């Protein structure tokens, strides 16, 4: 671990200078480091303890560390691979490569230490590194950066405050040591500390009410980096949430509220519910494909939070599984978007169309990604959704279950929108010469597709990791046997489902082939209700795709506006201060000093 972190820290500088020779060397350095990290950490035994920079025993490799590090390194490897070609379009390739490596350094550091201050340091390094990559994207990304840093700082500084509160009470920064003592504190203190520490996770994973930054930041950041932001950096937040929920442990710290769920978790679950609602319905409205997926991240963050907060055999495992599902799916989807933008230059859905015939592999990546996010078998997305649903129904938490269903079904709606608007439909004349993305870009996408389907049919490997984490926190581990997954309400076999799927597919294919072949006609030979069209660019339904649904909730309150108005209030106060500064000094000053002296005289 220690050597990995050192290599990464040095690698940032190395990458910067190498990329001045040839800009493709930067991502290659990142790829090499990620693969090295993946190899090292895959084989490292759980429970190893190392020191760093002379600090003893500051790095600890727990089961949770392993799980999250592996997810991170998979995402970063694919990102680096993809970048080898994409970096030719990056605005500042040297800084981009160096800061990407630094981001990886920060994130891995967060996963590897239970020392709260060291964790905070690594956290902020990751934040600062990613902070300076975001403005390299579109024009609006500069304002987005401010949202990012402010909300992230709110979370981090609340975390810092909570850390010092704990330190003043217990004299140590090591989370595992604290967790032993905290149960005996007063309820108010427990609530305060838990909320303070968790808010870093909440801000980072984009849960309501700190979700407003996701849309602009993920939507406007450089295209491949959006994959890292959505697929990996928000998982840092989920890591903190999982760590704190499991270590404290929240399950026993607060009183039971409903069906075995304690009241603090219940509050978190409701935050998750609202996030799902907001994420889903906002995503349905978006016309920009990256902002749409950014809202999807909000919704999925809500799922993860619900799963984690349930803190039981099935639900917690479901939440953890959903982390890897969303990481893979978001990466896939954003990388496919990056490929599309690489070729067409726009992210607006209604400016594209019919790209499937030009970019089939990209389409397949996107398709598998959305199948995973929607939670459809046989991809891995279904496994985690199933676990969460089972857990919710077995506890009788029907309101949350309703939100979960809404999120799941709503996700069909919003993921279908780019599919229909970008890949299917009429090919615009300006896109006639668009080619498929270069091979190097296709390879990581194909790898991710393979992983999603592999873990959907054979989820054992991931379940092993997940159950290790559950055992680390002293929970009853999820029960599974080969490909059969058990819960208190029933079981199913992922292999059987896959086989049935193939059987059905083969039957349909057989019938299809036996029957006479269809004649291929061009895309603009359509049923046009008797009209004669010459411009088929306009014959593409993509603008305001769900207009009828959007109308139903048009007058919704906007949290971005609410936050902006708070900022405006603060700015108004600042303006007031500035006003005082600009007055001429003379009588004003004399007054001020005299009054102050009088006050002090009386006051002491």
């Amino acid at each position: 671990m220690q050597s990995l972190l050192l290599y990464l820290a040095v690698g940032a500088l190395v990458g910067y200078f190498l990329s001045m020779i040839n800009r493709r060397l930067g991502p290659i350095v990142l790829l090499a480091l990620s693969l090295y990290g993946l190899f090292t950490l895959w084989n490292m035994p759980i429970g190893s303890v190392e020191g760093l920079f002379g600090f003893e025993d500051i790095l600890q490799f727990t089961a949770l560390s392993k799980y999250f590090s592996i997810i991170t390194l998979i995402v970063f490897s694919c990102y680096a691979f993809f970048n080898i070609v994409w970096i030719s379009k990056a605005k500042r390739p040297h800084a981009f490569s160096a800061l990407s490596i630094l981001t990886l350094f920060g994130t891995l550091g967060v996963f590897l230490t239970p020392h709260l201050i060291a964790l905070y340091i690594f956290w902020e390094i990751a934040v600062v590194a990613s902070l300076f990559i975001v403005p390299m994207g579109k024009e609006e990304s500069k304002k987005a950066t401010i949202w990012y840093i402010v909300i992230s700082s709110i979370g981090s500084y609340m975390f810092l405050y909570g850390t010092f509160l704990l330190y003043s009470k217990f004299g140590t920064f090591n989370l595992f040591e604290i967790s032993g003592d905290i149960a005996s504190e007063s309820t108010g203190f427990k609530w305060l500390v838990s909320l303070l520490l968790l808010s870093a996770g909440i801000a980072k994973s984009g849960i309501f009410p700190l979700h407003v930054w996701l849309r602009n930041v993920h939507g406007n950041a450089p295209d491949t980096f959006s994959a890292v932001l959505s697929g990996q950096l928000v998982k840092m937040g989920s890591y903190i949430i999982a760590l704190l929920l499991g270590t404290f442990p929240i399950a026993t710290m607060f009183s039971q509220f409903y069906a075995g769920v304690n009241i603090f978790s219940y509050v978190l679950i409701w935050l998750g519910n609202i996030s799902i609602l907001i994420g889903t319905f906002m995503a349905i409205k978006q016309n920009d494909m990256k902002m749409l997926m950014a809202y999807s991240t909000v919704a999925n963050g809500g799922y993860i939070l619900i799963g984690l907060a349930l803190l039981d055999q099935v639900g917690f495992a479901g939440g953890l599984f959903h982390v890897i599902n969303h990481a893979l799916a978001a990466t896939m989807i954003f990388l496919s978007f990056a490929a599309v933008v690489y070729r067409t230059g726009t992210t607006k859905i209604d400016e594209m169309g019919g790209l499937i015939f030009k970019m089939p592999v990209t389409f397949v990546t996107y398709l598998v990604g959305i199948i995973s996010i929607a939670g459809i078998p046989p991809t891995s997305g279904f496994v985690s959704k199933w676990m969460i649903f089972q857990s919710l129904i077995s506890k009788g938490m029907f309101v949350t279950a309703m939100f979960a269903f809404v999120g799941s079904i709503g996700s069909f709606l919003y993921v279908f929108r780019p599919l229909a608007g970008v890949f299917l439909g009429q090919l615009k004349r300006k896109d006639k010469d668009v080619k498929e993305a270069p091979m190097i870009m296709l390879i990581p996408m194909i790898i991710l597709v393979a992983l999603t389907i592999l873990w959907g049919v054979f989820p054992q490997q991931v379940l092993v990791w997940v159950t290790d984490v559950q055992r680390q926190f002293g929970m009853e581990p999820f029960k599974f046997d080969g490909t059969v997954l058990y819960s208190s309400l029933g079981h199913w076999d992922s292999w059987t489902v896959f086989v049935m799927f193939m059987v059905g597919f083969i039957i349909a294919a057989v019938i299809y082939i036996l029957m006479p072949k269809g004649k291929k006609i061009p895309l603009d030979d359509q049923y046009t209700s008797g009209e004669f069209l010459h411009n088929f660019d306009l014959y593409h339904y993509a603008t305001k795709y769900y207009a009828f649904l959007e109308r139903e909730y048009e007058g919704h309150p906007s949290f971005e506006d609410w936050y902006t108005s708070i900022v405006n209030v603060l700015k108004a106060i600042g303006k007031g201060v500035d006003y005082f500064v600009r007055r001429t000094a003379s009588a004003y000053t004399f007054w001020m000093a005299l009054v102050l002296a009088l006050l002090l005289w009386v006051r002491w």
Partner: protein
Amino acid sequence: MTALKVAGIFLTAFFFGLTFEGIGRKITARVQRRYGPPWYQNFIDLFKTLSKHGYTHGWIFDFGVIMALGGIIASLGFVPVGGIVAFPGMDNFFVIVYLFTIGSLGMAMGMVGTGNPWASIGVARALTLMLGYEVPYMISIGSMLYFYRTSSISAIMSAQGGDWNLVKFPIGALVALISLQGMLGKEPFEAPMAPAEIASGPMVELSAKYMGLLMLMNTFMEFAEISLFVDLFLGGGTYFVFLLKYLVVWILVVLISSVLPRFRIEQAVYFYWTVPIILAFVQVFMTVNGFVF
């Protein structure tokens, strides 16, 4: 053994699904004071369409149609039909519901892949409607799952014993019935397929073989959905008892659809999000507190 059972289910769905559809057409016609086609009309339609070559707009269209039919067949394999249960214990409710969505997704993908905006509009409406009917459906079934402490369809089927869930969970059954109407795409929730309004929506570019395949998919889907309802609320039963119950539910659905006009899509979604959801939660409240008849 399992393969035989699965084959049995498919053949049942094929023959009786098409037959009942024909009967349904007859009944609709009689209600609307016409003579109507013979009961075997759907078989004729199917074989006629399958025997002609059609037109295709590209590989995604073909793939979508195959995926649609394949997905439905896959999900049908899990549904207990009559006395035939292919995967006892493993026919998890959520698995079946999500397998349906493969079919829907395949169909949606293929249809939109034709490049016709009518298809896109129809699919957009279909997905929106799905957001409407799935939520109350899942909630009310969820309360049943909670009550029986299992999410296996066959287990619920056998746990009913002599008492049908229709009697035990009347409000839940009502909600499921309303959702069923939406799932089947029958009036008043026919907006996605609106024939004259959006030129049949998703089916606008379908011809010959493709039309036949999708008709088959439609039949299987109806069969699976109504079978699910019969299993969950009417206690399944042996082969012919099952088919009788199926017929009753089917005739009820057809009767309702033959006299009602079509809701606009936002009216439909708005409706689903008010009345059925409230009813579903009433049912949940009753179940959780033990008010089961």
